[in-house]
């Protein structure tokens, strides 16, 4: 049975208490998208600035629960310094980790190809969010920032 410690890992609480990259960026030159979780009313704004093909700055606005806030905070530190393609790679790995597999719904969830090899995904601190899949209702919290980043990257491609 999944317990609270599976969900609220220390590093998650740290990012919740001390969120990284809070604030806004001027649009333009930055690009912004806004995301909503219709289940709980949480909202997030993701600002991304790209210079010479590299994500130079990310800022996060809005409010949400510890899972959505910490996931977005970790996301910001994970993608700064990466190319937009590199950011998409991280996003893909993260979403794979957040996908529920049928055999995992009994509360003993594992996910993705890397479940038995912590760290193998290259997600670093984001691995701490793996426990979220044991609480399926909270997956939308964990992915809110990422889906919003996805929108920003789509906007950047159009530009």
């Amino acid at each position, binding site marked *: 049975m999944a317990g609270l410690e599976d969900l609220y890992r220390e590093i998650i609480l740290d990012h919740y208490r001390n969120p990284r990259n809070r604030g806004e960026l001027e649009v333009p030159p930055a690009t912004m998208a806004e995301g909503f979780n219709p289940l*709980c009313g949480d909202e997030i704004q993701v600002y991304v600035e790209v210079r010479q093909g590299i994500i130079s700055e990310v800022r996060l606005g809005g409010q949400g629960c510890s899972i959505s806030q910490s996931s977005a905070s970790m996301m910001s530190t994970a993608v700064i310094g990466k190319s937009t393609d590199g950011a998409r790679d991280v996003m893909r790995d993260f979403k794979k980790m957040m996908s529920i597999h049928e055999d995992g719904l009994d509360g003993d969830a594992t996910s993705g190809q890397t479940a038995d090899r912590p760290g193998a995904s290259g997600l670093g601190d984001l691995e701490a969010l793996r426990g979220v899949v044991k609480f399926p209702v909270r997956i939308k919290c964990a992915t809110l920032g990422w889906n919003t980043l996805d929108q920003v990257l789509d906007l950047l491609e159009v530009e």
Partner: protein
Amino acid sequence: MNTLSLDVAAIKAEFPLLQRQVYDQPIVYLDSGATSQKPQSVLDAMNQYYAEINANIHRGAYLIAEQATTAVENSRAALARFLGASVAEEIVFTKNATEAVNLVAHSWGRTNLREGDVVLLSTLEHHANIVPWQQLAADQGVEIRWIPITNEGRLDLTDLDALLDGVRLLAVTAASNVTGAMPPLRYLADAVHAVGAKILVDASQWSPHRPTDVAAWDADFVVLTAHKMCGPTGVGALWGRRDLLDAMPPFLGGGSMIQNVTFDGFTPAEVPTRFEAGTQPLAEIIGWHAAITFLEGLGLEAIAAHERDLTAYALRTLTERLGHDLTIHGPSSVEDRGGTLSLAYRDIHPHDLSQVLDQHGVCVRAGHHCTKPLMKVLGVNATTRASLYLYNDEADVDALADALFAAGEFFAF
């Protein structure tokens, strides 16, 4: 000390789900505002329908079809009695309260409202009593106007006269699913009727908890749902004044709702069949009758008294135990207030709070409760909501207080 007027231990024993454990502890179910649990008698009634008289109603000239028809029509009559309606034909079965509001908005609204007419809503409304009117507004050019709320989460009726200018319909909840406030319906009905308008009451959060009397309210339409009053999901009802229903066109078209169909068109059936297209949720309608029998067996006045006492106990206990760290979004007294407790505890997000409460077996709801305009006025994105019902007792409230305290420890920064 237990001064509550219901034997809660005996009542709990009638609810199979309340016997189960979660995380190796007894379940503490405090989410009846979302849906109530069901007593064994309701489950039995639905099973019995399927096991003994399962047949489609009307037109079947065989014994079980007649028995099924009688059972469904008995349920209609029981619901009419329960609501204080004068005739059973004023009851239209729907899928839920939401569909009942949609029925009125689509049928009465599109027939009677013109560009420039005003539909008055309260800030306390559930999305179910907002969005159908916004759809109507978009299609017909109808204006939506809002009754504001006080700091205590009650309706602020100071400027009611001005708000009523041009109003053709007031759609208002009988009990808020967030603050628990119970607006003065008769006062509102009198004010609305004085300007020649109609009043629709959303009784979804009222009828499970207090005696309902549509005549005493002098309402024109009342909507409610079975699953919040110990009945099954999948069925609700519209009560409407007979003269209004008679003048309304059908909402959904299909089988059963017609008098005649030709190659050129159709003639609608009489009320209420006109509004009941297709096969109805028969087992659920019959299960609802069993729920009504269950509630009437306990007595709605006794249920109301129990909930008033328990709500007072909860307001007192939570405030004493958690002090200024706790905010309760709603009236601080139990007068005209239901047992709905929307909480904010420290700065812990409702999702996180409810997650910790869950580990203590305490089931509460976290979110905007389908009342986003109200959340905006309250200045929050979401709340944590505990809602009390007839099977809850002081121990359940104590468990909530304990679990909130534990959550505070867990998230102590």
